[in-house]
């Protein structure tokens, strides 16, 4: 495996990339890596260096912890529903 000790690192790279309408090649060229590396990152098969993590976050204009986390991210549906549930409860 190519795992760079990334077993506990979770990311939302695929989600952000899809939302930005970027292909793997586009994103790879913006951060200076091989497009395959983006695929490995998205599948959690490789943990990026701090530099690469920061570069990726900069592309999407978000803090790095929105993109990568040591804890699993909440499912998107649950994240979207949470504010509505809170509003409905008021």
């Amino acid at each position, binding site marked *: *495996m*190519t795992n*760079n000790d990334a077993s506990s690192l979770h990311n939302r790279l695929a989600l952000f990339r899809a939302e930005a309408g970027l292909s*793997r090649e586009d994103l790879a060229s913006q951060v*200076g*890596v*091989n*497009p*395959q*590396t983006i*695929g*490995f990152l998205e599948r959690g*098969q*490789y943990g*990026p*260096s701090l530099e*690469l993590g920061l570069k990726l976050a900069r592309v999407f204009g978000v803090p790095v912890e929105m993109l990568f986390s040591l804890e699993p991210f909440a499912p998107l549906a649950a994240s979207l529903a949470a504010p509505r549930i809170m509003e409905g409860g008021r």
Partner: protein
Amino acid sequence: MATTQVPRLSTRKARWFSIALALLFPVAQIGLIIRPWPLSPMAEVAFAVIFLVAMALGLAVMIGTPGWRREAKGALDEREAIETARALSLSYRIMGLLLMAFTLWYGLATRGNSLGLPEPGTMLVVLLLINMLWLQLILPSAILAWNTPVDEED
């Protein structure tokens, strides 16, 4: 000065080439060097062709993948550089163990040989050294090809 980079083999091709090499190279050696039975001229030509094909595959893997070949600065991204370093490190250990085994065998077999080991005749020693030479040229690339998951875009 601008340098021309040799195109890289895909992971799939590197895997197939390394398998073919591992099969063809021993076959060629049996036919051309060991010669356990008399060969017709046609068979000799066939074994020579197999040997040339094996050499070509070996060179393609060696030149076409990161590993033994020297990469230009910045040619590998951080993941590829880490994978290449791991493959080289593992190859170094494997070759070290093989050299240790070779030295041990040679030492024991030429000093009394109480264990009944194969006699280290010139032919056998040369054959083993040729194989070790090829192995150390191909091993980093083969390890890299088999350790890297085949990407869907590969």
